[in-house]
């Protein structure tokens, strides 16, 4: 069937966890392979990185000069480009290096740093090429990727979650860990889509799905300080899995609420 849409899954600096959103689909993976022609997905088998496709999924962040060249070729060869997960969408946990001296880091891990070619930064895909759809999450879920593929196959715009984790907790009737137990939770500023798993396990959300729409980070930072976190600990809460997202990178510069009223 030559007229099936072509799909590719590419990988950059990442943990492979978002590709598992496909590989953990079970029977649905076989169904998906009927609906689209999976032309490149090295971990699953097909290898054809240069083929022209309709949908290219990208996992991982850009951190070497070769990565950047490869990314430009992928963009030129695809109709829709979709980023999968925190690394591709915000630079990932490894974007923490953007706040440090990366050369010094390489030198302290590798005895011969000259062999290691690495950019000083880990950056999201959208910093370099046009991205048609960003799927947030660390990791993304099978539900998210299937919804995106189904929407594109049906010719409609994919639905993207922008709500806060708090909203999902309310819908699940999960008792608020911050209000009832004083646990410093990131739910009020974090995008949902995960299922509000952490509060349902009695712990704090740690913002692995990135910033929600219109997050009031300043207000949450003051609240966290009110719960007893020192300013440096408040800053670390924002500088975590999605430290490279603009709203969190800014909030991560938090140095305390100087205007106590």
């Amino acid at each position: 069937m030559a007229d099936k849409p072509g799909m590719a899954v590419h990988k950059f600096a990442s943990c492979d966890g978002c590709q598992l959103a496909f590989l953990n689909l079970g029977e649905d993976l076989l169904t998906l392979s009927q609906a689209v022609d999976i032309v490149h997905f090295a971990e699953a088998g097909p290898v054809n990185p240069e083929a022209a496709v309709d949908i290219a999924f990208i996992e991982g962040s850009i951190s070497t000069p070769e990565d950047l060249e490869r990314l430009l070729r992928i963009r030129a060869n695809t109709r829709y480009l979709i980023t999968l997960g925190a690394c591709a969408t915000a630079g990932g946990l490894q974007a923490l290096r953007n706040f440090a001296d990366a050369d010094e880091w390489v030198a302290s891990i590798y005895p011969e740093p000259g062999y290691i070619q690495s950019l000083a930064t880990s950056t999201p895909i959208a910093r370099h090429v046009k991205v048609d759809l960003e799927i947030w999450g660390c990791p993304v879920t099978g539900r998210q990727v299937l919804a995106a593929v189904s929407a594109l196959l049906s010719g409609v715009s994919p639905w993207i979650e922008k709500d806060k984790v708090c909203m999902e907790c309310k819908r699940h009737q999960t008792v608020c860990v911050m209000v009832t137990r004083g646990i410093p939770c990131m739910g009020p500023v974090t995008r949902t889509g995960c299922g509000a798993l952490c509060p349902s396990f009695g712990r704090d959300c740690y913002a692995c799905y990135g910033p929600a729409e219109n997050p009031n980070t300043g207000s949450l930072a003051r609240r966290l300080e009110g719960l007893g976190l020192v300013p440096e600990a408040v800053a670390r809460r924002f500088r975590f899995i999605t430290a490279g997202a603009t709203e969190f990178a800014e909030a991560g510069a938090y140095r305390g609420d100087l205007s106590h009223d």
Partner: protein
Amino acid sequence: MTEPRHIPITLPVLARVEGEGTLELRVHDGEIEDLRLRIFEPPRMFEKLLEGRDYSEVPDMVARICGICPVAYQMSAVHALESLFGVRPTEWIRAMRRVMYCGEWIQSHSLHIHMLAAPDFLGFPGMVEMAQRHPDEVRRGLMLQALGNDLIRLLGARSVHPVGVRVGGFYRAPKQGEIDSLLEELRAALPQAEALVRWTASLGFPEDEQQFTCVALRHPDEYPMNEGRLVSTQGLDIPADLFEKHFVEHQVPHSTALHCLHDGKPYLVGPLARLNLNMDRLPGHVRDVVDGLRLGFPSRNMHHSIVARAIEIMIAVHEAIRLLESYREPHSPNINLRPVAGVGAGCTEAPRGILWQRYEIDAAGKVRRARIVPPTSQNQARIEDDLRQSLRCFGTDRREEELRHHGERVIRNYDPCISCATHFLDLRINRSASG
């Protein structure tokens, strides 16, 4: 003097490995002069990312090293930190960690067997094509993979980067009802896991006996996962915190994964090494099944790794049933602890072999220094050794396509998780001839 004739060849990305790498071969007059497995992971520098973070953040961070074995990273980390703080987990915590690890072994091994390795043995490009001819086997594999994920979810809420693990135990204890429904699934899966062992054993294997040293954990009475001494087939027997005295990592120019050597030599970690060193720790019923196979374990044939993985799936299903049958909801799913300054190490059996971590913590509970030695960097020197021997036996004058396919099969036996260490596997052959 004659000019050597060089024919550089680049072949596409190696398929069906977790991550990417390149195989470079230099062949002169039919002899392998140089062979390099370039595992190229854009360096993510996790050990540095951890510096300055609070100890309590470590389990959520190290999970991100590998989406396929996040539980292993969390387990080695919490053991290292708890030993540093001088606390011992309760029996309940110990049992639940083992259950969670069973889930990861089942999930990771099922994925590897069905999506990555079995297509080699049966001559298919991938699982999707294999499913046309072997639908029942593929379905069984997908069912087991899902079961492994369910077990991780029981304690971690999700199977990739689970959120339930903390230093000192778990955030939440499962309810009895959740245990009961999983037990039903597990009991139904046990005969399926046994059938999987028999199926993998019937696949047909190249004759390829090699000499190599196996290294694994060994526990006084269990098949090893979270605890044990480090032992080898050469007589090593040490507590895991002495790892650095006997195992040394060094950098090679062609890889971002550091090579690790044991007393200066390559060694094997992973399912086959574990099984070879722990045959007498197999649960009774599993032992009977293994004894009934025509293959002889312990084995020196790396192609038997796929069977070792299936056997470990059966062990894990059996163990999860045993542990969950005596489940009781605890008073608390975690123990109290107070951070103290010091250094602590932890070693557990990731699906791909021993995963060693060491942390130095300051008095405020922050990470001063971290060191992580993943299984793939330990296996890398052994993989190169194996490739040299296997490709010589296979014949270096064969077509590139054949060489690549055989090389891929050899590499896949190790299930290299290239994200852990490493990414890009294409083959570059440089052939030359005198005259």
